């Protein structure tokens, strides 16, 4: 009977060995990398990281830079519009698709296919369609309406909306699919009950179905939001930040300062601000979703 209790470290040893890549990724890259960047955002690193701490100097400079302010403003406009519009369009499309229509698969395939394309491809196509000379503006002018102006990519005031059009084209399909999954997840007896009670369809959607889909809405919102913060490729492809600096975004600011501006400290400070923005969105969500519960 006297055999020693096995060392707990070796219980499920194989599982632990197999999880080493995951543990390294989580601890070294995600935790370690983030901590490293945040730490070095307080240094005056230029071409190479160095440990000369200068307090909040990088942040002060960041918030005094016009390009950063423009980036933030653009991200806010793009973010709010993109969230509201993609939720709205996505939900309406999903509700239409949920009317037991024929050719549902065809419609879904068409609306979702842009999501399979990269932001680079998306940006370049829309750059072409919005080309003032040959694109929509050119065609309308060609039809005789000479004064017609629609050149979002060349107008600093509205360039961000030109990017928004492309972003929505690429992303609403996903929102629609998520919403449709949410609608399908609703107990069909709710609809039967509403029909027996004589509640009109729009009222059922507004007062019964949408409140029931709250978790789906929240999850979708978090997905859209975390995608918005990463907005980069689309801008690079469609406008390269132009005209001037009118369509700059934070992610591009970070990249440019880190890899071509030789000003790492600025890049670190800017990326830390991005992290902060994400935390403001994610932490309350995670708290609401998983707070108190152990399961992730």
């Amino acid at each position, binding site marked *: 009977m006297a*055999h020693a*209790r*096995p060392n707990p470290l070796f219980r499920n040893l194989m599982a632990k060995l197999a999880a080493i890549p995951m543990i390294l990724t989580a601890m070294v890259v995600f935790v370690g990398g983030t901590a490293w960047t945040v730490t070095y955002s307080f240094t005056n690193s230029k071409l190479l990281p160095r440990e000369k701490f200068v307090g909040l100097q990088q942040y002060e400079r960041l918030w005094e830079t016009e390009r950063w302010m423009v980036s933030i403003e653009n991200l806010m406009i793009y973010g709010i519009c993109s969230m509201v519009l993609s939720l709205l369009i996505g939900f309406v499309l999903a509700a239409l698709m949920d009317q037991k229509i024929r050719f549902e698969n065809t419609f879904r395939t068409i609306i979702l296919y842009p999501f399979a394309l990269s932001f680079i491809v998306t940006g370049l196509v829309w750059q072409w369609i919005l080309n003032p000379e040959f694109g929509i503006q050119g065609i309308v002018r060609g039809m005789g309406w000479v004064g017609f102006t629609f050149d979002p990519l060349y107008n600093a005031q509205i360039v961000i909306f030109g990017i928004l059009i492309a972003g929505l084209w690429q992303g609403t399909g996903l929102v629609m699919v998520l919403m449709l999954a949410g609608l399908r997840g609703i107990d069909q007896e709710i609809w039967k009950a509403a029909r027996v009670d004589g509640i009109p369809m729009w009222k059922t959607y507004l007062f019964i179905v949408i409140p029931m889909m709250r978790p789906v809405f929240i999850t979708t919102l978090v997905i859209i939001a975390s995608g918005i913060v990463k907005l980069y490729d689309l801008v690079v492809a469609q406008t390269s930040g132009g005209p001037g600096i009118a369509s700059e975004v934070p992610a591009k600011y970070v990249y440019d300062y880190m890899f071509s501006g030789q000003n790492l400290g600025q890049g670190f400070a800017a990326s830390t601000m991005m992290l902060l923005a994400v935390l403001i969105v994610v932490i309350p969500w995670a708290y609401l979703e998983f707070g108190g519960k152990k399961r992730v």
Partner: protein
Amino acid sequence: MHITDPSISIRNLKLSFGAVEVLKDLDLDVAQGEFVVLLGSSGCGKSTLLNCIAGLLDVSDGQIFIGGRNVTWEEPSRRGIGMVFQSYALYPQMTVEANLSFGLKNAGLPRDEIARKVAEAARILQIEPLLKRKPAALSGGQRQRVAIGRALVRDVDVFLFDEPLSNLDAKLRAGLRVEIKQLHQTLSNTMIYVTHDQVEAMTLADRIAIMKGGQVLQFDTPHEIYARPSCLYVAEFIGSPSMNFIDGAVAEGIFAAPVGDIALEGYDFAGPPGTGPARLGIRPEHIASGPEAEAMPVRLETVVELVEPLGSDTLVRVGVQGQSLWVRMDGQAVVQPGQALQVGFAPARAHLFDKATEARL
């Protein structure tokens, strides 16, 4: 009951998940070749206990012996057990034959020996024609036979069954129940069988362990458990419909209740008859009605409240002094709600429990 050479013995077993104690200091001895049923409602810890015996859950404290060997930290495959699961747990991508031989292959047995054992198990369970099929092509009953076969080929002393019949329909269940009993008689190895179905427990078991809250409340033969439940919970749990209870107090061989004083003549007290608040239990099938009630030592004048004809029997709820009692009557009995009915029972067949400790008096 003391067992000299136990097949399985469990000593001070504890298991907790975080702060939740699932098994509390549990002891159990199972004799060689015994058929033991772990019975309880869901969440009582019966499946957890079985998983601990199988080695599929790590215990927090205590010891498990199988065949005299301490297997507390042993791998499941080295404990000398075979296990049958509720969902059959057949490997869907393998044929029946491959399912049966998977464990033997892992144990590194020679090919011809595997073939011999698989053929033997298939013969016993009469599943030879199914060997080349995939589980998806089998009926529920056939699947469960294959699952039993998988335990059978392992040539082990102990079989563990985790609610093996719960996924089957009622008719198949009764058939397979008989087969399992027959199998036990043929093989005569130790079997531990988890179920929440008291009919399965009563019919199959040599002994039943009734569990609640991670503890064994009573571990006894089916007859004893039915006739002398050791506590209020067991009394309530066993029997369908369940036992009637009357609240009152016991003093000097008299049970005083709102329905009247009941003299406990012929009642076999578990210890010295005490005094104090108590509950008296009587099973519906032990309450006589009509002319038969005349012969009973205790008689009550009641009014019929509700009638539930079941065909073979008729269940009748009667009321007396604000107390409701269920009475099992013959299926042919003609009773109407509102009708007066005399019922009676013998205190010898009643059960008395202490109101506070819930233990049998």
